[in-house]
């Protein structure tokens, strides 16, 4: 039976190439994650603590940006091609955005990893949040800019495909997967404007020395304008798989197409005007603006709760089609031996836990308790690190056979891999959340302090550290198994029917959805309006306070302590018995300091 690679061989190559880049980034990023976890838990130290930030930046950029977004562009290319049932308008454009994104990724990665080699005059230890006053080498920012422009071109490619399809199908509803892709890209265009302005107008000129200073709060706010919607950019591919593939794998059909469309429209509207909730402790933003961001954030719970209902209802329908009965015993009738299903189901379950810790992050007052503690990485390892990453890995077990015409090398290894990820993340993320409640800080190679002990409510800090180390080891081994399985699948021979790639119609089809849901221009307009309302006054206030270019110098800076040493040595030189007769040493030091200052 013909599958995707037989029908659309050119597009299948692009999707395979995108996945290949994503999985290389996953392997390198996971290795760096293991090294960090073992380092900060003091289990095994193979790097210097100074290099910790280099690895942390590489871990964040390679996993949170490169792995997720390259998988997304591959998945969306598959979804658009498949759901419109036609080849992309111009495959040269498709390869162009892939080439631009890959070149940008290589440049940014080289700039980061060069930080490990002192002989190379280049570094980018700015973490994946890359706002000022931390400064990276210009190559890093230029690489990121190319990467983002590449995603814009990818979106244009998919919108062109939509235009062609619409020309031939003027009265049809947009196919659900294509609708999900297009709405996600609208959100992406709106949200990446912030980071594009920050990178192109401030960070690149600043790193090239064209301007001397920047306004750190402005670049920070522009980053978070993009930094929260990017969370949904990671999440939407997972939602696409949960809505359209998971019900089929469970043996059933999507419960409601209209509800799925409503969810994606809500994400278009609400994803961007909430970024200030990442800045609750920033002193330059008025509390009122933060309160508005918190309120908007709480509204964002609605589409996630709708998703929980729809996906669980669809999976239950599948289980009952397979003979499942009772209130809960239907769970036993699900196809747990399929790694694609088991991985997505476990990812969805962990997303529920991550959603609860996210509500705590979102609340202004309770956020102060956990801000900048290990709680926060604990939260996002559950969400992007499991809900998204595990869904992408699990989805690969279903997608790769369609893209290559080859059956998955080993489904038992796949099942072991997704379960190992779940268990590893339970250990690591649970321990991170608990450590955050004790006040253990994030983003440091040396979380211990002299003359201060963190107090664990239950258990001990040592146990927490061991949980983090053990969990990270399991996660790394899971990635190794995944990459082995994928590589072995790629190297295998083609078969006639590698996978059942059909997706059944939803129980409640698109014909029941109000037509207005497909009015993409309307939702774009409202989204822009909400962004203008949420951000105009805060940005005006930030620029008014410190100017467009602010006054912050470059960090990290080197502070010379030479004069302090000179003063101290000079003062000690005066400490003869004779001099002590009339001049106190403190006075001598004070005199010398005054002299040096002059």
């Amino acid at each position, binding site marked *: 039976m013909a599958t995707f690679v037989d029908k659309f061989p050119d597009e299948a190559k692009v999707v395979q190439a995108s996945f290949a880049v994503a999985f290389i980034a996953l392997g390198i990023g996971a290795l760096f994650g293991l090294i960090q976890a073992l380092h900060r838990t003091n289990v095994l130290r193979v790097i210097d603590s100074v290099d910790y930030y280099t690895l942390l930046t590489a871990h964040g950029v390679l996993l949170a940006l490169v792995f997720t977004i390259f998988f997304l562009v591959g998945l969306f290319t598959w979804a658009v091609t498949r759901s419109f049932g036609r080849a992309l308008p111009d495959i040269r454009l498709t390869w162009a955005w892939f080439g631009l994104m890959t070149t940008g990724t290589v440049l940014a990665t080289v700039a980061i990893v060069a930080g490990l080699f002192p002989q190379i005059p280049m570094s980018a230890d700015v973490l994946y949040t890359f706002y000022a006053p931390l400064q990276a080498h210009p190559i890093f920012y230029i690489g990121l800019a190319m990467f983002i422009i590449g995603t814009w071109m990818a979106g244009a490619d998919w919108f062109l495909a939509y235009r062609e399809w619409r020309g031939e199908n003027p009265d049809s509803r947009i196919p659900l997967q294509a609708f999900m892709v297009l709405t996600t890209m609208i959100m992406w265009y709106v949200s990446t404007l912030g980071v594009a302005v920050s990178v192109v107008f401030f960070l690149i000129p600043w790193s090239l020395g064209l301007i001397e200073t920047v306004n750190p709060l402005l670049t920070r706010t522009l980053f978070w304008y993009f930094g929260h919607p990017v969370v949904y950019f990671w999440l939407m591919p997972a939602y696409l798989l949960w809505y359209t593939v998971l019900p089929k794998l469970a043996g059933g059909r999507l419960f409601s197409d209209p509800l799925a469309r409503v969810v994606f429209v809500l994400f278009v509207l609400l994803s961007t005007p909430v970024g200030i909730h990442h800045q609750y402790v920033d002193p330059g933003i008025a509390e009122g603006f933060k309160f508005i961001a918190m309120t908007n954030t709480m509204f964002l719970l609605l589409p996630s709760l709708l998703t929980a209902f729809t996906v669980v209802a669809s999976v239950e329908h599948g289980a009952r089609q*397979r*003979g499942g009965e009772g209130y809960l015993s239907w769970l036993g*009738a699900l196809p*747990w031996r399929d790694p694609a299903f088991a991985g997505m189901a*476990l990812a969805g379950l962990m997303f529920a836990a991550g959603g609860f810790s996210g509500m705590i992050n979102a609340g202004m007052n309770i956020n102060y308790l956990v801000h900048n503690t290990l709680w926060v990485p604990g939260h996002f390892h559950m969400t992007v690190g499991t809900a998204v990453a595990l869904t992408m890995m699990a989805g690969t077990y279903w997608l790769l056979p369609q893209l290559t015409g080859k059956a998955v090398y080993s489904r038992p290894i796949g*099942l072991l891999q997704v*379960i190992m990820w779940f*268990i590893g993340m339970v*250990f690591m993320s649970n321990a991170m959340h608990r450590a955050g409640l004790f006040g253990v800080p994030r983003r440091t190679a040396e979380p211990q302090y002299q003359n201060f002990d963190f107090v664990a409510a*239950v258990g001990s800090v040592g146990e927490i550290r061991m949980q983090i180390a053990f969990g990270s080891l399991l996660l790394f081994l899971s990635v190794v198994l995944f990459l082995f399985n994928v590589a072995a699948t790629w190297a295998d021979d083609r078969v006639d029917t590698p996978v059942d790639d059909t997706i059944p119609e939803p129980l409640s089809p698109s014909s029941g959805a109000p037509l207005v849901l497909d009015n993409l221009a309307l939702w774009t307009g409202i989204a822009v309006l909400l962004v203008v309302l949420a951000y105009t006054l805060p940005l005006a206030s930030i620029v008014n306070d410190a100017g467009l270019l602010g006054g912050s110098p470059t960090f990290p800076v080197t502070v010379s302590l030479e004069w302090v040493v000179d003063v101290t040595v000079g003062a000690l030189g005066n400490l003869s018995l004779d001099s002590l007769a009339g001049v106190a040493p403190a006075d001598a030091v004070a005199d010398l300091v005054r002299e040096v200052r002059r």
Partner: protein
Amino acid sequence: MRRISPALFLVLVAFTVPLAVEFRTFAGFFGIELPFIAVIVFEAVLLAVLTAIYVLGRITPDEEEEEGAATP
């Protein structure tokens, strides 16, 4: 006894981990302080129960399942 597949058994084993990890925290809500060894014992008990269900399901499956009903 209902027969469970090796895959479902593995998934249930995975579910025991968060239960065991949070067992002491749960006990702590009621003012009961448990040592670390209690977590290991609790996990061992959960695994023993699961294994017993799995083995019994294989030895004495339900009549319907013996007739060839699908199990995941």
